[in-house]
């Protein structure tokens, strides 16, 4: 009975939290959980970052050689295609010589997925639409009035808001919607990796540590029983 009262009490508490998951104009962000264990996905994500983001956004805490090691990138590809600047060493951070505070206000992306969450970034990238009232000509459902232009328009195609506030596709982009979706997943995966490179090692090795302590507990339990 006591437990029931507790339960009812807590359910009523959680009931009041409605509306707090709001994602900008949306009721809820599209759900996406990043994974850093698919190396191909990370490499594709790096490609999108390099082609579409890197002219404004830095990765100020990530070193090129760390990236090379973790994503298994050949030295020549790294130096010729990715860095392509002989003044930048492989041990430098991924900043392309951009200043620390971007003149156009583009934030550093290294820790962005940790600040906003995977869901938010993933949804944000998908919900640009045409809006002539904005200086950039486009607006965003998750972050209304965002200063960022719809740079992925060539891939995604144009979108528009209908009278119900739903997104509708106006024109085709270079990618089919499913392809674009998977490209955005790659990009978020890559950014999630950039936010915490140690995550690859962490999530891979954790299970062994836990298993070790299961054994530890079992042995110590037997010892305790012996002396009980």
């Amino acid at each position, binding site marked *: 009975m006591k437990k029931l009262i507790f339960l009812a009490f807590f359910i009523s508490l959680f009931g009041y939290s409605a509306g707090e998951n709001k994602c900008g104009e949306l009721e809820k962000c599209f759900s996406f959980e990043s994974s850093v264990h698919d190396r191909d996905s990370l490499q594709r994500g790096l490609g999108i970052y390099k082609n579409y983001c890197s002219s404004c956004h830095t990765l100020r805490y990530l070193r090129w050689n760390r990236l090379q090691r973790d994503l298994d990138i050949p030295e020549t590809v790294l130096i010729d295609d990715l860095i392509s600047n002989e003044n930048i060493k492989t*041990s*430098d951070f991924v900043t392309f010589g951009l200043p620390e505070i971007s003149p156009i206000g583009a934030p550093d992306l290294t820790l962005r997925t940790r600040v906003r969450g995977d869901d938010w970034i993933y949804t944000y990238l998908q919900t640009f639409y045409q809006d002539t009232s904005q200086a950039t000509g486009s607006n965003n459902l998750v972050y209304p009035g965002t200063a960022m232009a719809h740079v992925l328009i060539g891939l995604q195609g144009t979108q528009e808001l209908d009278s119900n506030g739903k997104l509708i596709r106006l024109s085709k982009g270079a990618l089919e919607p499913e392809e674009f979706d998977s490209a955005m997943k790659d990009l978020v995966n890559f950014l999630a990796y950039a936010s915490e490179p140690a995550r690859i090692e962490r999530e891979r090795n954790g299970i062994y540590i836990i298993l070790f302590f299961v054994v*530890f507990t079992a042995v*110590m339990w*037997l010892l305790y029983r012996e002396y009980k």
Partner: protein
Amino acid sequence: MQGKKAKHIHISEGMSLYTRDRSPFYWGYINIDGEVFKKSLKTDDKDEAIKLLTLWKDEILVEGKKVLAQKINVSAKKTLISNTKPIPKEKVNTTRRKALQITSSVVGAVTVAGFAVPFLSAWQPSERAKALGASVKYDLSKLEPGAMAVVEWRRTPIFIVHQTSEAIKNLPSLNQKVANPALEEGVSRTTNDKFSVVKGVCTHLSCAPKYHPEIEPKAWDEDWKGGFFCPCHGSKFDLAGRVYKNVPAPTNLEVPPHSFEGDTLIIGEA
């Protein structure tokens, strides 16, 4: 106590104190599975009596166990033993105990060692230190014969000397004057005879030697064939960094790990 009415004080199951009309003392009553024991505790202090009673019960239990061990009455033994918790177990499986002690010690040691690994590794040079200490590249095409460049590598000045053909000729002739005449690798002590690469740190007391390539009489050497002179304590080295005899510096100038890739010298990677 005298004159007072006899009373009965319950202590715990099968254990109680009581008083008798004509006795000043507390009496103890113990009932173990139907076997009753009574005696005067010879004290009128209640707390003392409780203590004595408890001790007495333990005595009975120990005693009872000994007696029972001789008896054949198995069922009685069973019931009594089940009530004799305070008696320490006499039968300990020592092999099992030993095995558990060893196993748990090993597991404990592995745990401690495991914890030590990340803490010890954290003292290794960090990625930042590795980046700062990474190899340095130098373009040799800019360096004229006879000129010397100073490049910083791991907070150490590295002297790169482009030997003139005259100097290359002279170096073997200095074998008599230097302390360790054998030329490592080649004439220049590197894999490329034209270029010497040495740490610009005197092996005596870590001063910075000065570069004097001129072949002319000097205050410190009438027959100077070019080389390095340390102004601190007067140590002399030839152009390949070999130390002269009878100077304070004990060994040749150190050659850092390096390699040549065409016109590029890489310092820090052999």
